[in-house]
């Protein structure tokens, strides 16, 4: 039946709602899968190191190498995957 009243949106207990911003999600992903290190992430210009790490990830995963946190890159970061790092030990 057509909704007679606007659909109520409920907060379900125990639901894992990611509170991370896109940028936090990206930083965590790049660190976790070896595209950047804690040291690199802390030193130098944040934007430059992020762009460099993003380009490295985009190259490894066959994405368009923009160095930007674009929709395709974010989608790839959210896609189900293997937990083994892509770079390094």
């Amino acid at each position: 039946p057509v909704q007679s009243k606007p659909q109520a949106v409920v907060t379900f207990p125990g639901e894992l709602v990611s509170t991370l911003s896109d940028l936090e999600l990206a930083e965590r992903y790049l660190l976790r899968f070896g595209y950047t290190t804690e040291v690199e992430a802390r030193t130098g210009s944040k934007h430059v190191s992020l762009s460099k790490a993003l380009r490295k990830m985009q190259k490894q995963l066959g994405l368009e190498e923009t160095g930007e946190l674009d929709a395709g890159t974010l989608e790839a970061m959210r896609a189900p995957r293997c937990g083994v790092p892509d770079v390094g030990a």
Partner: protein
Amino acid sequence: FLTFEGDLKWDHTDLTYRVMNYSPDLDPAVIDDAFKRAFRVWSDVTPLTFTQIHSGEADIMIMFGSREHGDGYPFDGKDGLLAHAFPPGRGIQGDAHFDDDELWTLGTGIVVKTRHGNANGANCHFPFIFEGRSYSRCTTEGRRDGLPWCATTASYDRDKKYGFCPSELLYTNGGNSDGSPCTFPFIFDGTSYDACTTDGRSDGYRWCATTASFDKDKKYGFCPNRDTAVIGGNSQGDPCVFPFTFLGQSYSACTSQGRQDGKLWCATTSNYDTDKKWGFCPDRGYSIFLVAAHEFGHSLGLDHSSVREALMYPMYSYVQDFQLHPDDVQGIQYLYGRGSGPAPTAPAPVPTEEPQPVPTEDPQPVPTEDPQPLPTEAGSTSTTEEEEETPEPTATPIPVDPSRDACEEKNFDAITEINGELHFFKDGKYWTHSSFWKSGIQGAFSVADTWPGLPAAIDAAFQDVLTKRVFFFAGRQFWVFSGKSVLGPRGIEKLGIGKEASRISGALQRGRGKVLLFSGENYWRLDVKVQRVDKGYPRATDDVFTGVPLDARNVFLYQDKYHFCRGSFYWRMTPRYQVDRVGYVKYDILQCP
């Protein structure tokens, strides 16, 4: 492909593996079979062998777990990380772990394997008809003992084929009760339980006592998930309760009400409003076979590949008709050599970024990136009429050793009858065998000499009976030869075959210019003259060709009978769709000694 730093690899080829525990999502037999097939992906192309052991320390220890599961690399709940594995070596090295907050299936929805009944363990068929009603999940209707059951065909009323569904009332997994079912109620820690519980455990697995008192007998087992078990939420593994009340309304099926992401959920008690117990309803899930094949690649020494179609690419994508990509084959053979080839070799001392494959006895055909035909836009001017296309040489001809014996081959890329003789194709070579001339097997011949411009590895071929033209298929491309002149490569989408077909595995010529093309578990009927598949296709192979392997490697027509090959065997079917023979390709068809 990439190997791990230092080219970590096993120093022996007879590897062992042990499954430490099982996910409650699937019958352990289904998981064992999936792991066995996942290991076979690698043993098919290397000298490696894999033996399952059930106690002691194996090279590759396999476990399911969620969140922090004992190795310091926690999983992350549903979706996201699916699994991980460690490179070869002692202890935890080589082991593979799977996130049990995922729904493990074979990639296309829950697999409900039955036990007992009269269907020999066949999977449930949903929906099924029982007493005129349609059921899309297991039911206890028609029974007084409360055991959930299902039909294993579309209609119980017609076929009377049924089995019992996974449930804690039927059996338990693991534990110390040899699979005995739960006893309800049971006492644990002085409390009475009338359902499975996660109490007393930190890993979230649901368990029960198999006697009336755990406190006294300490007998227990893990509860298998029912087909209506929820994933995630705050009740992982508990079955949906239908009907349930939500915001004052009654629901008898999963709903996306209350959510903005459209995900289906249900309550695991009869009233969500009061109890707030809920979880997500089963979706397609993740293929334990595909994820395991990837993880075992790590266990053998392969790191992630940057080739999207490769198994070792880090992201998950479901493929129905799995084939190991040449990049994966090159990687694993770089470490261990090929199946009948040399023993494992010490890799080159200073591996470059792109390790040079170790030369095996015959030069590996270099897989070329064939010029991909530009996808035609819908309504574009290009039609399926045969366009004159100048053939691009897609592979440099491989020198073929004419003395190469067909009887040495484990299997073939394609088998088909051309000009009255059976042709067996493999890696740029082919042999012929005529039932008419008692001349035995002829060849090896070079494919490139006879059909210039074809890739070394093809998937299927057939000769059109009327025009005598020969069609070849490789991946999603096809070529049409009239003698030595060729049209193609063109994409099979031009024939009207959708993306679900990643490759064509075989063809059966029918009368009146029609040919059946097989891919995965489906087939299409091609009208050879207009070079388009007929409307109403694809159809499920199993619907017509019942009793033959649905993942056949070769399908061909020979002496008016249909042949479906898998492994060393073939299934022969009469035009009346009866399997009248199962035999050895090598000894019966090729007549090897």
